[in-house]
């Protein structure tokens, strides 16, 4: 077939069908490649997200109530809680700064953070600095064996004490 004789080549029905099929296959390949890329990125993300962690458990025993005499505020730094005992009432306040995760130290007026200067009162309310939220209070349970157990997965409203 000589192309020079035809000024405009009019596609035949068969050629039209071919073009459509080619375009469809190209489109399909593109979708397949992009889709595979997206799926592999996601599987990599799933791979690097650990299913099990090896860190500290969030529920842990802290000892018997007698170890926290009335009127004391005892910080357990490796567990990052402060046990507050007033009379026969007892509560656990977090000592992880709500700003950027440093450990707040007990001060005369409550808690102070050494990293960026956040300050909290005795109940963990923000009194200064960049901390956006008050320190959370955690659930404390008295286990059947007489030991106190802090559950950091369960936050309780500030001012919630248990009676021991």
């Amino acid at each position, binding site marked *: 077939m000589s192309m020079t004789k035809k000024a405009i080549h009019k596609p035949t029905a068969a050629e039209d069908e071919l073009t459509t099929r080619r375009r469809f296959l190209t489109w399909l390949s593109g979708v397949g490649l992009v889709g595979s890329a997206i799926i592999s990125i996601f599987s990599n*993300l799933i791979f*690097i*997200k*650990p299913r099990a*962690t*090896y*860190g*500290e458990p969030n529920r842990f025993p802290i000892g018997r109530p007698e170890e926290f005499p009335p009127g004391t505020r005892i910080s357990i*730094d*490796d567990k990052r809680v402060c046990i507050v005992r007033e009379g026969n009432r007892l509560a656990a306040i977090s000592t992880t700064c709500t*700003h*950027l*995760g*440093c*450990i707040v*130290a007990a001060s005369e007026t409550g808690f*102070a*953070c*050494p*990293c*960026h*200067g956040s300050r909290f009162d005795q109940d963990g309310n923000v009194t200064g*600095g*960049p901390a*956006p939220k008050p320190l959370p209070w955690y659930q404390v349970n008295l286990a059947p064996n007489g030991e106190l157990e802090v559950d950091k997965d369960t936050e309780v409203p500030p001012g919630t004490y248990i009676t021991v």
Partner: protein
Amino acid sequence: MVQRVRRNGLFGVLKDLPRNIWDSIFRHPLPSSDLGRAQTSFTNFFLHIHPVKVHRHTLRPTYTFGLGLISFFLFLILTVTGILLMFYYVPSTTQAYDRMLDLRGSVAFGTFLRNMHRWSAHGMVAAVFLHMCRVFFTGSYQSPREFNWVIGVLLFLVTLFMSFTGYLLPWDQLAFWAITVGTSIAAYAPVFGQEIRFLLLGDNTVGQEALLRFYVLHVAVLPLILSLLVAVHFWRIRKDGGLSRPPEADTELFESQAQTDEPVREIEPASATLAAGVGAPVGDTTTGMMGVVKRRYGIQGLVRGPFTTIGNVPDNSVFSWPHLFMAELFVFVLTVAGVLVVSFFFAAPLEEPVNVQHPPNPAKAPWYFLGLQEMVSYSAFWGGVGIPTIEVLILLLVPYIDRRVRGVGRWFARERLLPNTLFLIFALTNVILIIIGTFFRGPNWEFVSPW
């Protein structure tokens, strides 16, 4: 090309062996002609990333201050010292700190290598930032170099992230608390903040998993990304026509022109558009007109015949060998010498071993993050995520916002007063925040006077 020595017989072959091996590796003798100079850079694997000829303006020390080269050479030093340190390092919470002490106590040159690695890292952050300032103040991000500016901003971010992942590795107090703070900042990112933090740490708190992850990022993932970006960055310089230079650098002859490289020039007699007396090139077809010279392009790989002459532009280029390579060697030697001297006199800090119960007071990041830490002390989201994100976005978009191509190739060009002023404010703000964070913040991040 070198004429290969050919002798017959076993004795002859053996006698010529060293010479033939040498000549098969180094194809050209030290160049004494322009063809030789061109071939030297053209046929050498390590040199051919450079053009055969380079514009004179590019070689002006006060134009670039060699800052990009310094950044790259520091990266080379970091790679070499980093690989050496890897021979003795174990990314384990129980061993890492002891290994630091071993480096200090029992490994030959251990302290010195660690000093070199630490100070080069600090130097690289500074050099990359200053390089960015140079590119901005000379208007070099403008068309057609927009995309290379974007690559450059990414390189700056990767450099910072390299440094950030590096300082967890000694597992000292600075390491632990800086990463605690740093990853908490990441947790303030909208929507995926907590996820990002968890992926970075591999756990809910900074521990063994975090140390391993940061190690892999530091020694494998980020160096790969950095190398790739550096390769694209260098390649784009060539594709964008070399370093930026003012338009007049292409139309006027440099005064130093007449001193070197005379043989490859030919006077273009017809054009008298330029003032006579701007240099006085010598040539055999002079017809009384001076100044404009046809630029010649050689196709060394194919043709050894006469040069092709293209365009009515003065030839302000010189051969990369030796002009550019000597300049680069000079910067390299200077960079290495600087790192060696600093590492000899100043020890890299190593704080107390990690104590997860007591953050140091004040807990300070390295100097280049103290501006960020200062902002974070006002608001964790805005200081740590919001403002830095906006800053990076603006930096990335600068060449697409500032579309007027003017004042390129000159420091602090008058035509670029507005963008230069804005960038100066941006740079100074960060410097001032760093100074405040470094010298004016004490325990509990309260204001103190350094005096």
